[in-house]
């Protein structure tokens, strides 16, 4: 009986350690993928781009940032983007 309890607790401990190790690796991988996007989103909300270090136009900055996250090409043709460019 006692041996079975020892076996169960050992298995629990090993499973927990294994899961924690794998979870940490998976979390790091996901963080590496998501972090640049999150940083870019936050920087665009504050009025500048973290990649090119240029100020973004104050009007409609948030909608531009959201569009950029999902479809970067759409920004170039959005009305707000066109209005802010000298030729637009």
């Amino acid at each position, binding site marked *: 009986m006692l041996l079975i309890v*020892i076996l169960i607790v050992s298995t629990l*401990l090993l499973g927990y*350690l294994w899961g924690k190790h794998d979870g940490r690796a998976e979390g790091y991988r996901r963080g590496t993928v998501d972090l640049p996007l999150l940083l870019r989103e936050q920087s665009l909300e504050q009025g500048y781009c973290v990649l090119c270090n240029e100020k973004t136009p104050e009007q409609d900055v948030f909608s531009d940032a959201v569009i950029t996250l999902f479809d970067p090409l759409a920004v170039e043709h959005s009305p707000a983007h066109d209005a802010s460019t000298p030729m637009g």
Partner: protein
Amino acid sequence: MSPVISELAFIVIPVILCSIAVKLVDDFLDRDLDTRAGCSNFSNTFGNGAIVYGMLSLSLAASMNASVSIPLFLASYSIGMFNDFKKTFTSGLSGLQESLLVFILGVMLWGWQNMLFSIFFIFSIQLFDDYVDIYTDQLAGYRNFAHRIGKVECLLLSILTLCISWRISEHLFPGVLLGTAIFYSILFYYQRGR
């Protein structure tokens, strides 16, 4: 008194007396740490006499049942030293060396079964204590086992080592566990709200 109760008493009482000795010595060594964390410490009550009362308590425990109390005390010393295994002590030996030396001496003097049982039992109590005291120790700036290996791992390892100690000596385990539980209950009652 029936022989069974008498036999149990000759395990439980020495365990309580040995626990008192270990607690007094530990409090004497951790005075500064406990003062910083604002924890109660028997050294503040007994002053330098704490160590003398600890010796007295261990002598009484050994007089009643040496084969239980001395291996438990040696195991406590060994586990305590293992906590600071890189630090060099007054003897010139590192914590790890002292820990191993005390363990080997214990095995030579009291047999591997007594010593192994004591080591696993004390390690289990240490882990459980660290699990409970994780926030207090964090306040004092001390990284205990729960910090080092994780809280859940600490609790599971505590249960595992307790079961292993039970497997090693099934006739000693109930008495030693009862003695430890009584000591901890008294300690919690005394230290409540402090």
